[in-house]
Structures are given as C-alpha cells and as structure tokens.
C-alpha cells in the first residue's frame, strides 16, 4: 500500500515535471527557430563571403600563373686524362670546376601571344640569350616568333639544354651552329587536325650572324660582340618534321629534314674556299677579288628519333642526326664574322729612386683597343653525324651512349692536312664516343657522370705543331665530367 502510494506520487511528480518542461519548450521554440535561421543566414553570408574572396583570389592567381619563371644551373667538374687539353685563356689545365650554364628565364603568356627573356651566365660573361615575342591564333596552330631565339634547324638545337642526356651537344653543332641562337622571325605550323596531325613545320628568316647576337650585359663587351647584323645577307632556314606513332605497340618514329641557306658579304678580298664555289679558286684553295662578294653557307640535315616502351624497366630512345654542306667560318672554325677586334696591353718598366734613395723598377701598363681587322673567310665542305642510345632504368636512372663523327673539311684528309696551303689543325676530323649515367635525385636535381673518348684524324704534317697537340697520332684528350644540375 505504501509502495503504491509512493509510486503514484512519483508518477504525478514526473508527469508534472514533463508537462512543465513541454510548456517551457513550446514557449522557447520560436526563439530557437529564429536563432537557428539567423545562424544559417550568418553561415550562408560567411560562405558567400569566402566564395567571393576565393573568386577574387583565383582571379589574381590566374593572372600570376600567366607569368612563367624558370632557371637552372649546371655546375661541373672536368678531369682531362692528359695535361694541357683544356685550354682556357692559353693556360694548360688538367682539371677544373666550371659553371657551364646558369640561366634565368622569365616569360608571360596570354591567349594570343607570349614574351620570353632568358639570361645566361657562362665563362664568356652574362648574356641575354633569348629575347622574343610570339604571336599566334587562338588555337595555336600558327605562330610567329620575333627576336633572339633558337634557330629552327635540326633536332638537337631546339632540344632543351637542361634535358640533354649528355653534357654537350654534338661536335658538329658546337662548331657550325655554336650558340644555337640568332635574331629573326620564325614561323611555326602545328595544326593537329587531319593529315597535318603528325606534321610540324618551322621556317625562319634570320640574320645568319649566329653567336654574335650575344647581347652582352656584363663581360665580353668588346667591339665585336654586338646584337646588330653585320651585312644585308640573310639566312633562310627551316625544318619539316613528322611523327609516326604506333600507339598499340608503344612505339614511335619522329624525324625531320632541315635546310640552311645564308649569304654573307665578304669584307675580304681573299677567301679560302675548299668548296670551290668561287670561280677563281686556285690549287691552294685561295680565291681573290672577292671584296663585297657573296659567301654562301648551305647545310642540309636529316634527323630521326625512335621511342620504345617495350621493356618494363623504362623507355628506350634511339636518336640520330646527319648534316652535310658548305660552312662559312673564320680561323678556328669559328662562326663567321667579318671583323675581329683585339685588345693590346703594353707595359713599360722605369727605374725610379724611392724615398730611401734606392733605385727600384716600376712597371706601368696601358690597354688599348686595336682597330678592327678583316677576318679571312673560309668556305669548307663539311659532314657530321651522331647516333645516341638512351635507356631509362626505372624513374631515376638513365644510361646514355653516343657515337659521333665530325669532319670540318672533307676536301682535305690525312697527311694533306697541314701540308696543303691554308690547312691546319682546324681541318682535322674527329670521332667521339661518349658514355654517361644520369641520376635524377628529384624532379629538380640531376647528377651526370660522363666519359668522352675523343679520337682525332692523324696527319704526319701536323707533328708537334703544338707540343701538347701532336696530330701524327691520337692525342689523349679523354675527358671525365661530373655535373650537378638544378632546374626549376
């Protein structure tokens, strides 16, 4: 009985509590609902604010993303097997550290054009090596690029220096197109529809003055180093390329044919013409009466690249290029320029009496710029080719081998080099075998270890021309290169 009473009291008390709570809840419901609605509105406002802020930030980021900045440094240690092979300002070296290339590139791209400037630091100073603007249609099928830029010839010239699998380009390119740059206009056709899908065309009209476009900023600022053209002759050049992918087989053959035709105005009466393109060339290959005459540089090239992804260890690339034609150059096989400018330093020693009454020698020096001297032009039939095999091992390693030959003067060979008038060590042909390993430490860092075995054509006529360069036999000028590259 007592238990039932207590239970009834408890139920009554609880019921009362629940009803009181319900009453309290119903009284506060509109307030809570209003509060929730306000909170949702406040949150919505914040989200809208964040969205607006995001779109504003995105607009700024989009503008900034059209500015492209890149750069790289190639720091190198070179070790030559025989003393005196590396010549630097007439000094004999067996090993050295070098900054082969240090570059900063800045550009801006919009829907109808782009502009690029690239500065390079190397041993010849700091130069602006690229300065061009491009203009194209909205689909980028057709592009015209004006300014200082890579010449549109062959394959390896346009291949990025930071992507090169070996430390240097081929011997041919280093001699005939040294610097890879010129000033002019280049037309690009890259229409990826129909029959044009696998074809690309580059055509250029350029000064033809090649590496004298150095645009020096600091260093190498002699009179001869200028961006200006030195004559009215122009270079007409181009490359017609193709791609033939066999997609299901993961195999592709790319290739192209290139042509280079340039005329230079001779400022020299005498021209050394091994190609016999000048009518009055005599047996010593010397032609006279050529002042203001045309000198023609004509080069043909063909290149082929094959890509296989057959091995699970990584892609395989076999690449080759062949060039032949008539080169116009000056002594040392250097790219043609009509004049040379020298700097002469004269020293004078005087005997003077110092404060202590003793006679001492005082050396004074003065530097003077020489007047320009006319360079004797050389016209040489030449030939070069290379074949490179690249095997990737996983994502981080790459082994590379290259075989190449370059004959700067195919007209004169063997012991005739050095014996025939106007020939010299410049006309020696070379064969080089290069082997290297690349280790990609990250997306930015690459370590290259390379060994170059260079073999020269022998000529008994060039025995001991230079104590360090006896061309009667093979000169031991093998080179070991360690290079660390950082690029971004």
């Amino acid at each position, binding site marked *: 009985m007592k238990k039932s009473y207590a239970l009834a009291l408890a139920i009554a008390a609880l019921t009362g509590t629940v009803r009181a709570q319900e009453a309290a809840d119903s009284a506060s419901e509109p307030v809570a609902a209003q509060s929730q609605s306000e909170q949702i509105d406040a949150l919505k406002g914040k989200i809208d604010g964040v969205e607006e802020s995001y779109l504003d930030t995105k607009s700024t980021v989009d503008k900034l993303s059209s500015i492209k900045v890149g750069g790289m440094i190639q720091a190198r240690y070179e070790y030559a097997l025989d003393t005196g092979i590396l010549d630097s300002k007439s000094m004999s070296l067996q090993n050295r550290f070098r900054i082969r290339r240090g570059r900063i590139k800045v550009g801006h791209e919009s829907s109808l054009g782009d502009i690029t400037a690239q500065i390079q630091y190397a041993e010849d100073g700091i130069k602006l090596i690229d300065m061009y603007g491009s203009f194209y249609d909205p689909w980028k099928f057709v592009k015209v690029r004006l300014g200082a830029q890579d010449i549109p010839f062959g394959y390896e010239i346009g291949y990025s220096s930071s992507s090169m699998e070996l430390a240097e380009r081929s011997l041919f390119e280093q001699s005939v197109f040294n610097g890879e740059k010129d000033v002019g206009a280049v037309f690009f056709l890259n229409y990826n529809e129909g029959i044009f899908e696998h074809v690309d065309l580059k055509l250029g009209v350029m000064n033809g003055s090649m590496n004298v476009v150095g645009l020096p900023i600091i260093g190498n600022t002699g009179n001869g180093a200028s961006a200006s053209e030195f004559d009215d002759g122009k270079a007409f050049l181009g490359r017609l390329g193709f791609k033939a992918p066999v997609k299901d087989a993961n195999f592709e053959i790319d290739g192209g044919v290139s042509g280079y035709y340039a005329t230079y105005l001779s400022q020299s009466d005498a021209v050394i013409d091994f190609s016999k393109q000048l009518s009055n060339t005599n047996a010593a290959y010397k032609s006279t009466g050529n002042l203001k005459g045309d000198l023609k540089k004509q080069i043909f090239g063909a290149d082929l690249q094959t890509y296989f992804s057959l091995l699970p260890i*990584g892609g395989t690339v076999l690449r080759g290029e062949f060039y032949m034609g008539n080169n116009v150059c000056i002594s040392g096989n250097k790219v043609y320029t009509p004049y040379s400018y020298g700097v002469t330093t004269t020293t004078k020693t005087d005997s003077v009496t110092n404060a202590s009454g003793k006679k001492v020698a005082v050396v004074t020096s003065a530097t003077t710029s020489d007047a320009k001297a006319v360079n004797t032009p050389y016209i040489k039939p030449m030939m070069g080719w290379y074949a490179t095999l690249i095997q990737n091992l996983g994502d981080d390693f790459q082994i590379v081998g290259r075989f190449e030959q370059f004959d700067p003067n195919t007209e004169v060979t063997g012991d005739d080099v050095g014996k025939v008038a106007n020939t010299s060590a410049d006309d020696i042909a070379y064969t080089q075998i290069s082997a290297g390993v690349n280790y990609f430490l990250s997306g930015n860092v690459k370590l290259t270890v390379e060994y170059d*075995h260079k073999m020269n054509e022998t000529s008994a006529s060039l025995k001991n021309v230079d104590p360090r360069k006896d061309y009667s036999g093979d000169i031991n000028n093998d080179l070991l290169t360690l290079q660390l590259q950082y690029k971004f």
Partner: protein
Amino acid sequence: MKILSAKVLLPILGAALVVGATSGKTVTVKGSDTMVIMAQRWAEAYMAKHPGAVIQVTGGGSGVGLSALVNGSTDIANASRPMKSSEMNQLKERYGSLGVEIKTAKDGITLYVNEHNPVNELTLEQLREIYTGKITNWNQVGGSNSKIILYGRENSSGTFAYFRDNVLKGKDYAPSCQHMPGTAAVVNAVSKDKNGIGYGGAAYAKGVKEIAVKKDAATPGVKPNAQTIKNGTYPISRYLYMYLRNRPSGEAKQFIDWVLSPEGQAIAVKVGYFPAK
C-alpha cells in the same frame, strides 16, 4: 681510358640497375576530379582484397595528374581527356617514354540546369553559343526571360578541356563563365541558381535537372545513360583514362588489372559511370 671508365661507370651502372628494378608497394594515383570518387572506391575495394597494398588517391584535375606523372610525383595519372602532345613530349624528353594509356571507364558529360528551369533539351550548337557568350538569355532557347549564368570547370580539369575541344570546338569560354574547383561545386552552384547551367560527370547529377542533348535541331534529344553512352547516341561521351610512364609492373599492374576486371568495372557502374568495353 678503359681502366678508368670501367672503374667509374660499372659500379654506377650496377647501382642503377638494382635501384631501377626495385619498386615499392605503395601506388600513388593523382589527377581527374571527375574520376576521384570512382578511383577512391577502386582503391578501397582493392586494398580490402589485398591486405598490405596501399593505393593513395588524390584529385586536382587531369592536367595536375599528368604534370605529376611527368615530374615523377605519382605512379598513375587519372585523366578525363587524352594526353596532349605537349605532355607526351615532356614524357619523351624525361623518360624516353610515350606513356601507357589505359581506358578504365566511359562517361557522358552531363549538362545540368536548375530543377525549376523549364528548358529540357538543347542542341550542341546552342550549347556552344551559350558557353561562348553568343546566347545570353534563356528565352533564346525556349526558357524564361532571364540571364543565363554559366558554370564550368577550372582550366586544369580534363572536363574543362574536353568540353572546350568537343562542344565549343576549340573556342574560348565566355568571360562570364565561373570556373569551379570541382564537378560537385558546379552541381551545387546550379542547384542554388535558378538561372544557372553547368556541366560535369554523370556521377554527380544529384539535385539538378539533366538536359537532353541533341546533335542538331532535327535529331531527338538524348539523355546520358548506360545505353546511350555505350551505343554512342549521346553526343558528349568520352573515355576516362589512367596513364603511366611505362608498362605497369608489380602492385600498379595488379591494381590496373583488377580495375579492368568485372569486379572493378562493376564499381565504375555503381559510382555512375559505364564500362570501358
């Protein structure tokens, strides 16, 4: 020369071969936002069946994924568009490889409008003119007199590129188009905007109305579904790809083989896409 080269090069080549042949068990997958949910489902199901295997999936867009493939920061790139020739050239330069393309599923790019919008179908020509800014009012295509608000994807997205190349025929998007960071964001924006129109993968078409697309004015409108995408009558369909630097091996190969198996393809269908074959 022979002695020096052998001493220097052989140990390096040996080390290269050993390291090059070694592969870890974690497989990273990066790229297309359109594919990210499907790829996550694949990864979850695969890891459940293969204890010890780790498949890491992230989005970012097809361009981001393919860029990561080139710079070596992902093993597999998901892409809702084919690889561009410029991207392939980068692979050729760095890895000597053409890349390996795997078609993993099919997708129909769906056009969404707000569920209160009276417009039910549009021709490809009308879509092109809407997104290039030539048609700016819904009453020009049979709707109410109100301004068309455009929503699209960011330019790193494969869907952005596919829509521009195949629907806009290479023309630029109208400047007024708002480029959203993901397809889900496009759907969300259109569901809240009664004058909005957006596009994205079929898997995301929730809470909005799908538009039937007509090849031209004379043909009937077609909505994206398994049948119309498989038989090609839906005019805006595409493959969804995985790209690798080289032929897959190890865990990556097992994962891809499984993705292409009936089990993996069933997950693609469950998420809202269609089998690759």
